[in-house]
C-alpha cells in the first residue's frame, strides 16, 4: 500500500518535472524569440528589443531607435473602422509619393476608448509618433509644455500660406505661448473642421404631422420656438418616441449658449463668461427643454435610440454621418435653429502636430503638409466624415457630393453662420475649466441646481482654471 503510494508520488513527480521543464522552455522560447517573428511581422513593437539597451537609455528618448531616421510614424483618431481604412490608404499613397521617407500609420484608438489617454501615455513614455492629431482644445497645453514643435521655420521654407485654411483654427495654431495672442508660431495644420447640425428622422416627422424643419429653415422660420414645437409634436406620438436628443458634453450645450449670443469665455478668452445674461438665456432654454419629457433625458446617449428610429432630431457633428448612414429610415440633416441673437454654432477642429522629439522635423512637416493638401482632404471628404479645413472649392465639392444626407449644405452653413471656434485656453487650463463647468451645467440642465445659484457662483467655481 505504502509502496504504491511512493511509486505514485514518484510518477507524479516525474510528470510535474516534465511540466515544469516545459513551462521553462516556453519561457525561454518567449524570451529568446524574436528573430523569426521579426522577419514575418512589420509591427514596430517587436523591433525595439535589440537596440533598446541598458541603463544608458533615457526616459524621454523619442521613438524606437531601431526605426531608422527616415521612418515617420503618424497617428490620428478615426471614429470608425471605415475612416481608419481611409487614413491607412492615404498613408500608403503619400508614402509612395515621398522618395526617402517611409510612413508608418498607427490607427489611433477611437474617442470612446481613449485616444487622448493613449497619446498622453505615449508622450510621457517617449513612444509617441512623430506626427499626431490632437483636438483644437489641446493646442495650448501641448505647446506650452514643449511637447510639440513650432513649425514656422520649416513652413517658411516650403512656402506654406496660413490663409489657405479657415482663420479660426489658424488663429490658435499661430498663437504665441508667452503672450497668448496670435503671433509667429505655427503649431500644426488643421486636419478638418466640423459643425453641428440636427440629424432628422423624416419618417417620424411625417408620422407626427409636424412641419418639416428643412422647409422651415428654407423659409427662415427655423427658430427655437419652432424647434420646441417640432420636438413636442414628435414626442406626442407617445411611447418611447422622443423629439430631440443631445450628448452630454460641452459641445452641444455650448452651441445653445452660442446661439443666445453667450459663450464660455469673454471675447479675448481670458475670463469666464458663463454668468453673462446671454449664456444664462441659452441655459434657461435648455433647462426648460429638458424639464419636459419630449427629449432624451440629459446624459443618455441619444445615438442608439436615434439609430433605432425613436428620436426625431439628434444634434451632432459631421463625424456622426458614417454611423448614421446604416439606418433604414428616411433621414437628412438640417441646421441648428436660430437663437434669439441669430445663428450660433461651433467650428470644431483638430490639428496634425509634430512631436518635439522627432528626429526628422523636415520630413514630419512635409507629412503634415501632405496630409492637408486639397487632394487628400477631398479624398477624406469623399468618405463623408469631415469637412475640409482648407478653403478650397475642390475639397468642398467633394464634400457636397457625398450623399446622403442630401442637405450637406447645412454643415457648410454652420461654418458661415458665425460659429465660435473651438479652442484652448491660452490663459489657463482648458481641461480644468471643462471639468468644473461640465458638472455644474449638467446639474442646471437636469434641474438639480438653481439657475440663480449657478449665475452667482459659476465663475468663482471655475476660477481655478485661470490661475
Amino acid at each position, binding site marked *: 500500500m505504502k509502496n504504491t503510494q511512493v511509486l505514485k508520488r514518484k510518477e507524479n513527480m516525474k510528470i510535474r518535472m516534465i511540466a515544469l521543464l516545459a513551462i521553462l522552455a*516556453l519561457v525561454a*522560447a*518567449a*524570451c*529568446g524569440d*524574436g528573430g523569426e517573428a521579426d522577419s514575418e511581422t512589420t509591427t514596430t513593437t517587436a523591433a525595439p528589443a535589440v537596440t533598446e539597451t541598458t541603463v544608458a537609455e533615457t526616459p524621454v528618448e523619442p521613438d524606437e531607435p531601431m526605426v531608422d531616421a527616415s521612418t515617420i510614424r503618424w497617428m490620428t483618431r478615426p471614429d470608425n473602422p471605415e475612416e481608419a481604412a481611409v487614413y491607412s490608404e492615404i498613408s500608403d499613397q503619400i508614402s509612395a509619393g515621398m522618395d526617402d521617407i517611409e510612413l508608418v500609420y498607427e490607427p489611433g484608438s477611437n474617442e470612446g476608448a481613449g485616444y487622448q489617454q493613449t497619446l498622453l501615455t505615449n508622450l510621457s513614455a517617449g513612444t509617441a509618433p512623430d506626427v499626431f492629431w490632437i483636438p483644437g482644445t489641446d493646442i495650448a497645453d501641448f505647446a506650452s*509644455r514643449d511637447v510639440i514643435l513650432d513649425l514656422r521655420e520649416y513652413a517658411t521654407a516650403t512656402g506654406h500660406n496660413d490663409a489657405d485654411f479657415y482663420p479660426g483654427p489658424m488663429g490658435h495654431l499661430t498663437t504665441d505661448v508667452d503672450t497668448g495672442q496670435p503671433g509667429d508660431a505655427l503649431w500644426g495644420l488643421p486636419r478638418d473642421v466640423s459643425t453641428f447640425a440636427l440629424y432628422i428622422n423624416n419618417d417620424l416627422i411625417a408620422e407626427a404631422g409636424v412641419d418639416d424643419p428643412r422647409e422651415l429653415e428654407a423659409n427662415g422660420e427655423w427658430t427655437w420656438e419652432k424647434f420646441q414645437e417640432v420636438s413636442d409634436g414628435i414626442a406626442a406620438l407617445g411611447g418611447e418616441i422622443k423629439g430631440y436628443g443631445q450628448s452630454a458634453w460641452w459641445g452641444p450645450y455650448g452651441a445653445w449658449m452660442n446661439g443666445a449670443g453667450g459663450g464660455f469665455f469673454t471675447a479675448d478668452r481670458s475670463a469666464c463668461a458663463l454668468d453673462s445674461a446671454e449664456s444664462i438665456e441659452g441655459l434657461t432654454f435648455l433647462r426648460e427643454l429638458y424639464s419636459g419629457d419630449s427629449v432624451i433625458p440629459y*446624459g443618455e446617449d441619444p445615438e442608439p435610440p436615434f439609430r433605432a428610429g*425613436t428620436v426625431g432630431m439628434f444634434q451632432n457633428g459631421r463625424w456622426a454621418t458614417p454611423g448614421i448612414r446604416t439606418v433604414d429610415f428616411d433621414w437628412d440633416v438640417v441646421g441648428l435653429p436660430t437663437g434669439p441673437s441669430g445663428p450660433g454654432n461651433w467650428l470644431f477642429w483638430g490639428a496634425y502636430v509634430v512631436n518635439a522629439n522627432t528626429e526628422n522635423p523636415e520630413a514630419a512637416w512635409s507629412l503634415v503638409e501632405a496630409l492637408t493638401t486639397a487632394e487628400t482632404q477631398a479624398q477624406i471628404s469623399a468618405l463623408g466624415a469631415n469637412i475640409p479645413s482648407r478653403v478650397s472649392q475642390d475639397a468642398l465639392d467633394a464634400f457636397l457630393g457625398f450623399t446622403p444626407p442630401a442637405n450637406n449644405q447645412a454643415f457648410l452653413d454652420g461654418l458661415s453662420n458665425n460659429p465660435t471656434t473651438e479652442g484652448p485656453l491660452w490663459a489657463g487650463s482648458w481641461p480644468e475649466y471643462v471639468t468644473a463647468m461640465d458638472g455644474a451645467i449638467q446639474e442646471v440642465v437636469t434641474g438639480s441646481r438653481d439657475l440663480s445659484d449657478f449665475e452667482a457662483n459659476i465663475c468663482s467655481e471655475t476660477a481655478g482654471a485661470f490661475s
Partner: protein
Amino acid sequence: MTTKLTEGITQEDLPTWFKPLVAWRVVVAIIVSLTLAATILKRGIEVEGLLRWTLALGLLGAVVASVLAIRWTSAREHRGRLAGFVLDSLLAVILGFVALNGMGMFTGIDAVGEAFNGSVGWLGIVIIGWLVQGYAARTEAPQVALRQVARWTMITGLVVLLLAVGLIPGIIEFFRRAVQPDVLVFWVIAIPAGMFARMGWTDSAAQLFETTESQTETMDGLLFVAPNALGFLAFFAGPLVVSLFISFTEWDGLTAATFVGFQNYIDLLSDNLFLRSLRNIVVFSALAIPLAVGPALLLASLLNSKLPGMKAFRAVYFLPSIAGVVGVTLIWKQLFNSTVGYLNFMILKATEWINALFGLELEAAQPQWISDSNIALFAVVILFVWQQIGFNTVLFLAGMQGIDRTLYEAAEIDGAGPWRRFTAITVPTLRPTTVFVVATTTILALQLFNEPFILNSPNAPAGPANSTLTPVVYLYQKAFQQFQIGYASAVAWALFILIFGVTLLYFRRGGEDGVLSA
C-alpha cells in the same frame, strides 16, 4: 547547534580555486567602485535627482561590503563566504537582467504572441491529453494503456507547441544576441559572478570557511527567498518608495519635477473634486459592503445544508466573480439602459403586475441608471454587489463548515428554530470569517475603478455631475489625462491611508477573536 563541520585546514590543503576567488573578490570590489564613480559623475548612468543619490548610497554600501569581503575571504573568516555569496549572486542577477533586457528577452513575448496565435491549437491538445490522463488514473482499475497514450499525446503536443512558437530559432536568436558587444560586456561579468556564487554554495566552500550549519541555512534561505524578494523589491517596494517621493513633487511626466513638500496633500484638503470622490466612495461603501456581506451570510447558511442541489447553487453564485469585470460591466451597461434596457422593463412589468393584483395605480419608476447624477452611484452599487455576493457566500460557507455540527443538534433538541440557530450559533461563531469578508470587501470597494470607468466613457469617467467619481478614477484622470503625476501620487497615498486605517480598525476588533492568530 553551531558545531563546526571541519577543523584545521592547513595552508597546503587550500583548494586550487582559493586564489582565483580572492582575485575575483578584488575584481568585484573594483567593478562596484567604478559603478559608484560613474553614478556620481553622471557617466553613462542616466537617472535623475534623488534616484541618483539613492542609487549611489546603495552602491556605496556595496563597495564597503565588497572591500570587507576581500578581507574576510582572504582571512577565511566565515563571514567571507556569506558576503561573497550575496555579492556574487546579486551581481549575477542584476547584470544578467540588464543583459537579458538588452537582448530584448523580456519584450520577446510579443513576438511569441504572434506565433502563439497561430499555434494555440496545440495547447488544446496538451490540455486534452492532461485531462484524459487524469481521468485514466482516477478510474477504478487504472487504465495503463490509455494513460500512456494520453501522456504521450500531451508531451507531443507540448513539443510541437514549443516548436511552433519558435523554440529553435528562438534559441539560436538568443545566442546570436548574447554575443552582441554591448550585451557581451555584461555577460562577461555576470557569468563568472554566477559561477563563483554557485561555488560559494558548495560543501567544499563550507569546509574552507569553516561555516556553521546555521549559516548554510541562512544561505539556503536567501536563495529560496531571492526569486521572490528581488522581484518584490524591484516591482513593489522600489516603486512604492518612488511613489511616496513623487507625491511630494509637482511633475507633469514630461519636464523635470519640482519638490513641493506637503503642498499636494494640503491642496487635496481643499480640492472639491477630491472631497467629492471621498464622499462618493464613503456613500458607496456604506451601501455596497452591507449588501454584499449580509445577504451572503444568509445565503451561505441556506446552502450549508445537506439538501440536494446545493453544490449547483454554489457554483451558480460563484459565476459572476469569474466572468471578469469588463465584460460583466458592459453587460450591465446594456441592462441599465433607461430606454431599451431590461431593468426598467422589468420594473414596468412588475408594477403592472402589482397594480393588476391589488388594483392599485402605481406608476412605474423608470430611472436613468447611468446618466442621472442622483442614481448613477446606486447602479454601481448594484453591479458591485451582484459581482461580489457569490464570492462572499462561498467564503462564509467555508467558515461554516468549520462549525461543530453537534452545536446545531443540541440547539435543535432545545427547541431552537432555524432563525434562532442562525442568530445564536452561526453568527457569533463566524465572527472571524465575517471580519475577513468585510475587510476584503471594503478594500475592494474603496479601490473602485473598473465599474464606473466602463459604465461611463473614458473621456468622462467621473460620471454625470461627478456622481461616480471615485478616488481611483480621480487618480487616473490626474495621472494619465491631465499631466499631474505628483498630485495623482498624493491622491494614491491619501487613499492608501484611508484603506490602511479602515483595515486596521477591522483587524483590531477582529484580532481579539483570533483572526490574525494564524
